C-alpha cells in the first residue's frame, strides 16, 4: 500500500469518526485518538524514517496537511455540537414553571408618595426642610395668625402635652422656624407627620402626613402660586389633569385658596369618589398673610410669598384608589407589597 493511500485512509477514517460524534466528550476522545502525543498522527510522523527516500517529502507534507485538516474538522464539529446542544436543551425546559421567588422589600406607600411630592418641588429648586413634631403653641398657632379665641382654631383640634407644648396639627410651624432663621429669598418644602385628635375610621386618622411648601421673595405673586401647583398636579396626577382654585379661608394666608384637581377616576365626569363633582380637593394654598411675616420679622411691604399644604394620605389614596386610610397603619404585608 502506497504511503499516499495510507494517509487518505487515515483521513477518511478520522473524518467519519468526527462526524459520528454527538457530544464534546466523544469529540475529545476522537481528538485524543488522532492528535495526542501518542495518537495516530504522531505515529505517522514516527514512521517517517521507514518511508522510501523519494516519497519522504511529500509524505511529510501530507501528514502536516492531515493534521491541519483534522484540527479544522474538529473545530467545525465542536461548533456544530455546541450550537445544536443549545437548542436541544431549550426544548427540554418548561419555561411555564414559576421561577424560584426571591422577594425584595418595599417602601411604605406613604414614604413613596411623600418622596414623589418632594421630588417634584426639588426639581423646581425647593429645598427639603424638616422640623419637630412636638411644637410650641406659639409656632403652631399664634405665629401663624391663629389667635386663641378665634373660631378658626376649631378646625385645628390638637393633642396637648402640657403648658404651651403640643403635637403639631400641621406642618406649617416649620415655616415659622425656617423664617426665624433664614431671610428671603427662599423656597422650601416640608414633609412630616402631624396629629389631630380624630376618631379613627375609614377616612380619619389621628396621625397623618403633610407636605408643606413656602416660597418667599421680593416679587412672588398669586400667579406664581398657580404656576407651581399646576406643575405639581401635572407631575403628580398626569399632564391631562385639570386644576382649579377656589377662594377659601386660612388664617395664615390671604388670599387663600382650596385647590381641586379633576377626578382621576372619572376624568371629571362625576363619580362616587368625587361625590359627583368631578373635582377632588387636594390642597390648601395662598399668599403668606402679612401677620405671619410680621411674626417672623419679615417686612410684608418688601417681600411676598406663597404657601401651600397637602395631606399625603389623601393624595396616596386618590393616586392608588385606596378607600380606607387605616390600611396605611395596619402594615399588612399583602397591602404594602402592592406598591
Amino acid at each position: 500500500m502506497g504511503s499516499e493511500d495510507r494517509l487518505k485512509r487515515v483521513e477518511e477514517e478520522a473524518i467519519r469518526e468526527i462526524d459520528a460524534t454527538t457530544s464534546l466528550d466523544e469529540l475529545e476522545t476522537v481528538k485524543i485518538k488522532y492528535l495526542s502525543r501518542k495518537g495516530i498522527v504522531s505515529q505517522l510522523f514516527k514512521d517517517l524514517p521507514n518511508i522510501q527516500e523519494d516519497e519522504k517529502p511529500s509524505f511529510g507534507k501530507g501528514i502536516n496537511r492531515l493534521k491541519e485538516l483534522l484540527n479544522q474538522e474538529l473545530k467545525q464539529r465542536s461548533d456544530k455540537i455546541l450550537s445544536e446542544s443549545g437548542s436541544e436543551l431549550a426544548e427540554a425546559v418548561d419555561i411555564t414553571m414559576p421561577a424560584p421567588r426571591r422577594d425584595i422589600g418595599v417602601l411604605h406607600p406613604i414614604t413613596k408618595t411623600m418622596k414623589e411630592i418632594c421630588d417634584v418641588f426639588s426639581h423646581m429648586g425647593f429645598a427639603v426642610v424638616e422640623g419637630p413634631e412636638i411644637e410650641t403653641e406659639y409656632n403652631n398657632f399664634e405665629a401663624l395668625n391663629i389667635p386663641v379665641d378665634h373660631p378658626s382654631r376649631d378646625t385645628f383640634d390638637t393633642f396637648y402635652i402640657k403648658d404651651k407644648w403640643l403635637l403639631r396639627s400641621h406642618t406649617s410651624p416649620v415655616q415659622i422656624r425656617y423664617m426665624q432663621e433664614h431671610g428671603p429669598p427662599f423656597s422650601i418644602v416640608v414633609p412630616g407627620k402631624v396629629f389631630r385628635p380624630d376618631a379613627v375610621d375609614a377616612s380619619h386618622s389621628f396621625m397623618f402626613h403633610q407636605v408643606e411648601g413656602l416660597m418667599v421673595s421680593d416679587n412672588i405673586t398669586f400667579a406664581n402660586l398657580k404656576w407651581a401647583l399646576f406643575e405639581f398636579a401635572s407631575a403628580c396626577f398626569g399632564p391631562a389633569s385639570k386644576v382649579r382654585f377656589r377662594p377659601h379661608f386660612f388664617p395664615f394666608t390671604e388670599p387663600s385658596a382650596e385647590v381641586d384637581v379633576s377626578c382621576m377616576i372619572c376624568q371629571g365626569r362625576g363619580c362616587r369618589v368625587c361625590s359627583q363633582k368631578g373635582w377632588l380637593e387636594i390642597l390648601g394654598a395662598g399668599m403668606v398673610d402679612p401677620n405671619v411675616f410680621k411674626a417672623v420679622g419679615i417686612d410684608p411691604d418688601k417681600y411676598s410669598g406663597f404657601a401651600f399644604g397637602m395631606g399625603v394620605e389623601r393624595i396616596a389614596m386618590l393616586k392608588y384608589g385606596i378607600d380606607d386610610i387605616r390600611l396605611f397603619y395596619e402594615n399588612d404585608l399583602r397591602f404594602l407589597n402592592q406598591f
Partner: protein
Amino acid sequence: MKISYEWLREYINTKIRADNLSSLLTMAGHEVTSQEEKNKDIIFDIEVTPNRSDCLSYIGIAREASCIAKKRLMIPPSKITSKKSKAKPIKVSIEEKIACPRYSARVIKDVHVGQSPKWLIKRVESMGLRPVNNIVDITNFVLFETGQPLHAFDLDKLEGGVTIRNAKDGEKIITIDEVERELRGSMLIIADSRKPVAIAGVMGGKETEVTETTKNILLESAYFDPISIRRTALTLSLASDSSYRFERGVDLEGVVSASDRAASLIADTTKGAISALTDSGIKKKESININLRPAYLNRILGIKLSVEEIKDILKRLCFNVKGASSMEVTPPSFRNDVTREADLIEEVARIYGYETIKPQPPSIMVTDESPGSKDFIKKKDITREVLTSLGFNETLTYSLLSRKVITDASLPEEGIIEIMNPLSREQEVMRQSLIPGALKSIYYNASRQAQDIKVFELSDIYFEKESIYNEEQSLVIAEYAKTGRSMTSYDDSELFHIKGTVDILCEKLGMKTIEFEKTSHPLFVNDETVGMLLDGAMLGIMGRIKPDLLSKFDIKGDVSCCEINFKALADSSILKKFYRPLPRFPFSYRDVSFAIDSNISYKELASFVKREGGMLVERIELLSEYRGDKIKPGQRGLAIRIIYRSKEKTLTEEEINNIDTAIREGLTKNFNATLR
C-alpha cells in the same frame, strides 16, 4: 349652612338656575358641598368659612350671589306698620359694655301664641328645625334670614328690667333644653332683678321662655362680643345657632332692623301690639378706612387691574371707595373680617375670579438645603434602599400608644411623654421605642398566615429629659419566623440575619466598625442580647425577644430585632467614597477546621490569625459553627477560611503553606485548639 333654593330666590331679583348658583357660590369661596332635592325645593349645604359671619344668613348669601352675578339684592322691608302699644319701655342696664356693646329690647303686648302659619312652618322645616310656636319660629326665621340671633322672653315672668352682667360664681340657670347649668364669673348673662334669665348669646332660660300661655313678650336683639360668647360656649360645651353667629361676629348696625323685622312679623302673625324700642349702647360701628394701593394689589396677585376695575368690584361688595392711585376703602358694617389691605386684595381677587388669574412661573430661585439636613435626608434614603433590597418591608406605625403596650413590652416608663387630651387609651402616651409598633405589625401579619416577616421602620421616638421634650430618629429592624430558628444554626438564625443586615447597612453608610457586645435587656432573651457600640457609646440593642413577651403580643414564633439610634448612626456615617485600586494578583485560600473551648470568641481567634498572618491575610471567613455530641462538652467546632493575597506578586504554594502552618500551630498552642 343649609340654604333652601326656593327661599333664597326671594332675595335675588332674577332667576338663577340652581346649578349656576351652586358653581357661582363655590367659585366665590362659599363651597356648596352637597345639594339635595326635597319637596320640590333644592337644599344646598354651603361651607361658610369662619371669617365670613355675614354669610351665615339668606340675605348674606343672596348679597354675595347678586354681587357676583351683578343682579339686584332685594331685602324685605322691616318698617313697622302695625298698631302700636303705649306700654312703658322696659329698663335695660348694661354692666359689661365691652362684652355687650349694644342691646335692644322691645315689648310686644297681647300676642296670641300658637301654631305658625304654613309658609313659616315650611321655612323653619327647610332649615331642619322642628316648628315650636309662632313667636319662637319667627325669631328663628329672622335669625336665618338676617344672621342676627334674637331671643323672646315671656315678659310677665321677668321681674323688673333686664341687666346684662357677668354671672356670679355658682349662680345657676335651667336652660330651655332643661339642663341646670352652673355659671361662672366670666360668663355674660341676662338677668332680671332676681336671677339669670338667659346665658347671653348662647341660650335662654326655661323659666322665662315663651309658652302657649304667654301674653306679653320682650324681644331681645343685641351684639355680644365674639370672644366672650366663644369662651362661655366652650366652657359650657354648649353651642347653638346663636352662639355660632355671635362668636363669629354679627352686624352691630343690623341689630335694630332685625328686631323690627321680627316685631312686624310677630305683629302680623300674632296680632300683638308693638311698643317703643329700648336701644342701649353703641349704635354705629367705628368705621375704618383702609388704604389700598392698586399697584401693590397687582404686584401680589400678578395681574394688571385698572383702578376702575378694582373700584367696581369693591363697590359691588358694598364697600365705600375714595381716591385712585391710593384708595381709601371703608367696608360695610357687616364685614367684620375686612380690616387690612390684604383683606381687600383677597376680596378683589375673589370676585375677579381666581380662575381668571393666569399661571406664571416665578423667576428662577434655587434654595440650597443646609448641608447637614441634606446629608441626613440622604442617609435616610440610603437606609431605606439597603433594607428594602435585603427584603425588609417598610412599616409606618402610630407615634401614640397605650400605656399598656409599654408595660407589656417591659419598656421603661421613665421620661415618657403623656398626652393631656387623648381620645382613647390607644393614644395615651408617645412611644419611646419603635419595637412595640414592630411587634404589633408582626402580630397583624402572623395572625393572617404570614410565615416569615421582615420589617423595618425609620421614624421618630419621643422622651422627656431634664424637662426638655426630645424627639429622635430611630430605626427598628425585625425578623419573624413562624418556626423559630433561634441560635441553633449560625447561618439560619434570625439574630444573625439582623446582625448581617446591620453590617451591610453600616458598610453602605460608610460607618466605622460597630462593636457587638453581649449585654442584658428586659426585652430580650438573656444569652441572646447584643449591645451595639460605636466608639464606646451605646448605639443600639439587638436580640431575640423573650417568648413570654411575644405571648403578650399574641405572637407564636420567634422574633429577633434591633433598635438603633439613627441620629447617632447618621452622625458618624461618611458618605464620601474614595476609590481603592483593584488587586493585581490572584488570591489563595486555606480552610482550617478545629474544636475549641466555647468561651473563646471568634473575635479573639480572628484577630490572632490576622496578627499572625500579617499583611498577607486579606480576610477571614467563618464557614460553619458546630455544637453537638460529636464534640467534647464545653467545646465547639469552627471552620474558617483564610484568604491570602499579596499586593506585590502571586504567592507561591510554599509561602502560603509556611504562614498556614504557623497559624495552625499558633491556634493549637495559644488556644488549645484541636485541629481536624
